[in-house]
């Protein structure tokens, strides 16, 4: 049952990215092109998603545990440090270069574009390089 919930969540997440056009790198770059030919519509994607999750998160506060798991796994990290900022800058630069972030890249995996494989391959290599060179963030526990 929990496997089904995870798969359904992934599927709906993917549908949302596809319906909104967030999976189209050209559209994403248009959204980031504030000083040029700005296409602001993608604001509504993040806005819609944040509002819905905000409500669900508030609702979860009234519950002691999720439907199918022992506990809510709240992210333990709260620090605003160099690591967070440097990571966000690197991510943002890569995002702007071609218009792909991890979710949309994975959704586009079966689109038949060879470009996606180049990107996702490098994405995984970058993830592992950071793991070996820097390592996981310390939660202070």
């Amino acid at each position, binding site marked *: 049952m929990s496997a089904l919930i995870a798969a359904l969540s992934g599927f709906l997440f993917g549908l949302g990215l596809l319906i909104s056009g967030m999976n189209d790198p050209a559209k994403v770059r248009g959204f980031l092109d504030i000083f040029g030919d700005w296409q602001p519509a993608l604001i509504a994607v993040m806005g819609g998603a944040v509002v819905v*999750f905000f409500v669900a998160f508030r609702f979860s506060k009234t519950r002691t545990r999720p439907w199918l798991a022992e506990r809510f796994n709240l992210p333990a990290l709260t620090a605003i440090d160099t690591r967070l900022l440097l990571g966000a800058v690197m991510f943002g630069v890569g995002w702007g270069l071609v218009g792909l972030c991890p979710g949309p890249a994975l959704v586009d995996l079966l689109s038949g574009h060879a470009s996606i494989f180049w990107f996702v391959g490098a994405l995984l290599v970058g993830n592992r390089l950071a793991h070996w060179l820097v390592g996981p963030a310390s939660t202070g526990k």
Partner: protein
Amino acid sequence: MMVELIGGALIGVAASLLWLGLGRISGMTGVLSSLFLLSDVQRRWSLFFLVGLVLAWPAVQVTGFATPITITESPWLLVSAGLLVGFGTYIGNGCTSGHGVCGMGRLSVRSMVATITFIAAGVVTVAVMNALEVQP
């Protein structure tokens, strides 16, 4: 702006389902990193989440609601971008989904700072590329 709002709301529903059902944050960076874990419950749900995510494209094609995408074909640009995104999201512990949707939705200051930072970096990158007339 209607499709963007509907699509966004659907992403919110997906994130809510995973949180209320399994108590997990639907962040793509965490999902990807989990693939490399040797044995953990986290890898299990991540794998199923990933399968569902990847199957969304063929499902949309079958229904005839096709969405063409436009992307650069330069391997140099794609590999550079992929490495930066992979490395950056790992050390920053999240991307558009984990920080941008879930983190913002739970009013995490850390995630708000991360989201503003990566959007700003993306905006500057596109502006610089335009100024240098680099077309992806």
